[in-house]
C-alpha cells in the first residue's frame, strides 16, 4: 500500500491531505448547521457583500474556535506523549482539565450564590466571557500544583502520578460543589462535557494568542523531543539542558491545554487519537508530527462539531460527547487492528 511510495512523497501527501481536510471542514462548517446555507450565501457573507450574522457572528468564530481548540489539544497531546515517551499520555495528564472544571464550577457557584441575577440561565449566558478566564487560571494552577508536588520535572514517573492525584482530588471537589447547587451548575456541566457553543470572537482571539505563544517553541524543539525518545540519559549525554527544556515544553503544552479547556471544556480523545493516527502515517519524527497534529486536530474537531450541531437538529450535542463516542470505538479499532497484525 502507501508503504511503497518514497517517504518524502508520502509525507508530502499526508500534509496536503490534512490541509484539504481543514479547508473542507471550514466550508462544511460554515454551510451546515441548524439551517443549511447555499454556498454562494456563505461566500457573499465572508466577502462582506451581504450581511449574514449566522455566518460571520455564529458559525465562523465557532468553526475557527473548533479548529484552534482541536489543534491545541492534538499538539499538546503529541508533545506530552513525546515528553513522557508514552503514546497514551493525553493533554489532560497534568491535571489541567480537572483544574479548569473546578475553577469554572467554583465561579458559577460563588457568583450564583452572591447574586440572584445569576440564575441558571444567566450563568450559561455569562460563560464565554469570564468563566473561561477562571478555567484558564484553574488549568494553569492545577498544572503548577502537579509540578510542585512532583518536585520539578526531573522524575517523569512522579509527574504522572502527581497529575493523577491532582486530577482526582479536583474532580472530587468539583462533584461536591455541583451537588451543593445542582440547578445552577447545569450549564457548567454542559461546559465540562466539552462544548464549542461558548466560543465567540473573544474566544478565538484568546486561543489564537495562546497558539501564537506556544506553537513556535514546540515546533522548534521537535528535535529535542526526538532526542528524548532515546531516553533522558542519552539526551542529557548529548549536552541538552534537559531540565530547562522539559519545563519549556511542559509549559507550552500546558498553555495549549489550558486555553483549550478554558474555551471549550473537556473534549476527550482528540489529543490521543490525532497524534496516534499521524504517527502511523509519518513515523515519530516530532518535527513533522507536531505541525501535522495541529492541522489534523483542527480538522477533526471542526468536523466533529459539525456532527454535534447537525445530528440532533435543532438541538445540539456537546462536541465532547461526539468525540468520546466516536473516538473511543475508533481507538479500540486501531488497537485491535494492530493486535491482528502482530
Amino acid at each position, binding site marked *: 500500500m502507501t508503504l511503497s511510495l518514497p517517504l518524502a512523497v508520502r509525507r508530502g501527501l499526508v500534509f496536503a491531505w490534512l490541509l484539504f481536510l481543514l479547508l473542507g471542514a471550514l466550508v462544511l462548517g460554515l454551510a451546515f448547521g441548524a439551517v443549511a446555507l447555499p454556498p454562494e450565501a456563505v461566500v457573499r457573507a465572508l466577502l462582506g457583500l451581504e450581511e449574514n450574522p449566522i455566518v460571520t457572528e455564529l458559525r465562523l468564530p465557532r468553526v475557527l474556535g473548533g479548529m484552534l481548540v482541536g489543534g491545541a489539544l492534538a499538539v499538546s497531546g503529541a508533545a506530552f506523549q513525546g515528553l513522557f515517551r508514552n503514546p497514551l499520555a493525553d493533554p489532560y495528564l497534568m491535571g489541567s482539565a480537572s483544574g479548569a472544571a473546578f475553577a469554572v464550577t467554583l465561579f458559577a457557584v460563588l457568583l450564583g450564590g452572591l447574586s440572584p441575577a445569576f440564575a441558571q440561565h444567566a450563568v450559561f449566558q455569562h460563560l464565554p466571557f469570564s468563566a473561561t478566564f477562571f478555567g484558564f487560571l484553574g488549568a494553569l494552577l492545577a498544572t503548577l500544583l502537579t509540578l510542585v508536588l512532583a518536585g520539578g520535572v526531573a522524575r517523569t514517573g512522579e509527574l504522572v502520578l502527581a497529575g493523577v492525584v491532582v486530577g482526582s482530588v479536583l474532580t472530587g471537589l468539583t462533584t461536591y460543589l455541583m451537588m451543593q447547587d445542582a440547578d445552577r451548575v447545569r450549564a457548567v456541566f454542559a461546559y465540562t462535557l466539552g462544548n464549542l457553543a461558548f466560543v465567540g470572537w473573544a474566544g478565538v482571539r484568546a486561543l489564537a494568542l495562546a497558539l501564537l505563544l506556544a506553537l513556535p517553541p514546540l515546533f522548534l524543539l521537535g528535535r529535542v523531543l526526538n*532526542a528524548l525518545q532515546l531516553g533522558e540519559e542519552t539526551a542529557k549525554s548529548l549536552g541538552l539542558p534537559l531540565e530547562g527544556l522539559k519545563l519549556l515544553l511542559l509549559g507550552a503544552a500546558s498553555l495549549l491545554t489550558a486555553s483549550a479547556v478554558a474555551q471549550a471544556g473537556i473534549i476527550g480523545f482528540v489529543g490521543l487519537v490525532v497524534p496516534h493516527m499521524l504517527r502511523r502515517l509519518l513515523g515519530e519524527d516530532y518535527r513533522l508530527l507536531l505541525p501535522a497534529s495541529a492541522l489534523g486536530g483542527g480538522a477533526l474537531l471542526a468536523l466533529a462539531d459539525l456532527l454535534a450541531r447537525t445530528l440532533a437538529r435543532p438541538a445540539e450535542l456537546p462536541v465532547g460527547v461526539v468525540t468520546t463516542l466516536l473516538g473511543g470505538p475508533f481507538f479500540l479499532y486501531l488497537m485491535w487492528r494492530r493486535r491482528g497484525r502482530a
Partner: protein
Amino acid sequence: MGGLEARGIVGPFALKGVDLLLRPGEWLALLGPNGSGKTTLLKAMAGLLRPRRGEVLLEGRPLRVHGSYGRGRLLAYLPQGGPYPEGLLVEEVVRLGRLPHLGLWGREGREDREAVDWALEVTGASAFRGRLLGTLSGGERQRVLLARALAGRPRYLLLDEPTTFLDLEHQGAVVGLLRRLAGMGLGVLSVLHDPNQAALAHRVAVLEGGRVVAEGRPEAVLQEPLLARLYGPGVRVVRLGERPHVYLDP
C-alpha cells in the same frame, strides 16, 4: 593531559573510592559481578551522575568545566537497552548524535552530514539508513545506536554492555568495531558481562564491591583465583595461545 580519569570517586550508590584512567587509543573493558557498580561508574564518568566525593577529569579538566555541549562533543555514552525510537528513520536517529555540535538552533552543514555518513559507514549501518528503527533486528539496531554515538565524532566512547542480547555474529561485529575504533585513536570504555569479550580488550579493570580490585592486561587480570572469587568456584581459565579463555565447570 589526554584521557578520561576518575579520581577517588565515592558514591553515588555502590562506588567506594574508584580511580580509573581511560587513555585515548585504548579499549578498556570493565568487568565485575552484578551490583559491583560498573554502570554507576560509567554514568559518573559520562557526567550523568555526580559523585559524592572525588572528581572526573576530561583531558585534564573537571567535567563541568567543559560545559554540557563541550562534554557531549568529547564523549559519547550508549546506555544498555532502550528506549528505542522505533518510529524514527535510522538516519534521523544517527543525526541526533550531532546535537552537541549543533545545539538547539544550529543548522546542519557539510561537516555534520559527513560525520553521519562516516558513522553509518564505520558501523556497517549505511544499508538501512532509510528504514524505520523499529523494522530492524536487534543486531542491526545496535549498529545504528553505535552510529548515533559515533556521529558526534567523540574522543571517548562509553558503552554499557553493548553486546547484551546480540547473537554471536553481532557480538563479534561489535567487539571488532570497538577494537577498530580504539585503533583510530578513540578511548573506548565498555562495561561487559562476558570475560571472554573482555579478554579481547587492551586492558581490563575489575570492579568488586565498589572498588577496582584488579587492572591491567587481560592475560594478567583474568586469572582463576580472582574470577573464582567473583563468580564462584566453578570458573576455569585456560589459555588459547596468549589469550585467556574463561568457562564454567559446575
